[in-house]
């Protein structure tokens, strides 16, 4: 993986660890910024965030993959795996599902071994019980982010999970609180979201909340796919808005042909 050159690393800016992306962003992401990474399936947003997380000092919330799956991908690209604090919501979620399923199965197994008389007695009085009350995943996110040390980089991959479990307004409030915490800690907050599922209005609200918006698109041209990364928004740095074609090779994200829009 190519790291941004030292000359590029500037005061008050955090390098993304991807040289050409830093160049597109004229040095990187300003400290305290909240970045929304919007992408469609196939655009490899998850590879981008994993590559960014290789810069180290990371608090990484993973909702779609387990911690091991994330690190395995990093190993596959031969990236150096730095100091990452994982919050493995994906494993926690599946653990809860599995627990509930096991309890349900054991309740039915238990009932199947009973004699008819016992079964009638129990069925007239109760139903199989499973553990009530799920983990509050949004609260986990909120609590962890609140206690983040100065300069820590927070990655939330992805918001889609929270948006499938909680009302949009609650997720928005939590991200807003995370943005404030990040502003105080002078780190960087990256949130990933799939484009086109949650409605234009919500996307606009998220874009409004974010200081920087990176959008990843994949366009099919005949039998080939072209991928584009655009910097849609950069608060107070209108000059940084631009677009670049990219590909994924053995080293990860490779940006080609940078074009400035403003």
């Amino acid at each position, binding site marked *: 993986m190519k790291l941004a050159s030292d000359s590029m690393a500037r005061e008050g800016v955090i390098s993304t660890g991807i040289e050409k992306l830093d160049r597109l962003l004229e040095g990187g992401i300003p400290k305290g910024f909240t970045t929304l990474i919007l992408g469609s399936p196939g655009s490899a947003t998850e590879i981008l965030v994993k590559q960014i997380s290789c810069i180290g000092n990371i608090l990484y919330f993973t909702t779609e993959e387990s911690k091991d799956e994330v690190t395995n991908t990093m190993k596959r690209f031969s990236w150096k795996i730095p100091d990452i604090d994982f919050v493995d919501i994906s494993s926690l979620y599946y653990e809860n599902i599995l627990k509930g399923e096991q309890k349900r199965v054991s309740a039915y197994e238990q009932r199947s071994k009973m004699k008819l008389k016992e079964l009638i007695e129990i069925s007239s009085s109760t139903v199989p019980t499973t553990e009530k009350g799920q983990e509050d995943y949004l609260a986990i996110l909120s609590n962890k982010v609140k206690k983040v040390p100065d300069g820590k980089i927070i990655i939330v991959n992805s918001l889609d999970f929270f948006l499938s479990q909680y009302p*949009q307004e609650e997720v928005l409030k939590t991200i807003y609180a995370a943005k404030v915490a990040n502003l105080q800690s002078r780190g960087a907050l990256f949130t990933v979201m799939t484009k086109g*599922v949650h409605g234009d209005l919500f996307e606009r609200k998220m874009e409004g909340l974010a200081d920087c918006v990176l959008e990843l698109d994949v366009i099919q041209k005949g039998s080939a796919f072209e991928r584009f990364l655009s910097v849609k928004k950069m608060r107070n740095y209108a000059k940084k808005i631009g677009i670049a074609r990219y590909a994924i090779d053995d080293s990860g994200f490779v940006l080609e042909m940078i074009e400035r829009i403003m």
Partner: protein
Amino acid sequence: MALTIKEIGDEKRKVWITQPREINDTILKRREQAFHIAMGKLKEHNNPETVMQTAEAFGRGLFSDFIQEKPTRWTMEEWIKPVVEKIFNPMGTAATFTKITEEEAKSVVFRCPIQQKSKEACSHCSFSYGFVRGLFRSAFPNGEVVMGNIMVDGAPMCEFTFKTNPTDEYDMERERVKQLFTKQNMDEK
């Protein structure tokens, strides 16, 4: 504006019928796009959970955008009327409710948005369930949607039962539906 949900029958046997309205292209396009994205994610992650999650998030998004009045404490009727009128019917879906009480509502879907003949029929079923669940749990966070099949006039129909306070036995309903359609998907292949 006339309500699209109409009560017919007598005290003993009452049903509530709804009619599809003029199709709202915006909702249909959003549904198509969300389903397409869910399929893209399924291809990428090979995990049926992503279909369910995308569908639930899509349902929550529609609820947030199209249901304007949101009381702090919902009743079943307050949920059914606007959802049928603003979301189901404009999608071209007619649902007949055979039961509406505070704890439970049952609906038979006559023109389901599920594309039965599609190669991705099982994913459509899974997506439809997730989408309806997202809509329901936006109002009733602890509620559950139970998916079943019933025969109406000799034809198999999809039946959704909405439970505001489900008992423990429905805790794994979402998983059951997910696994059912995943298994069917595998069998089809």
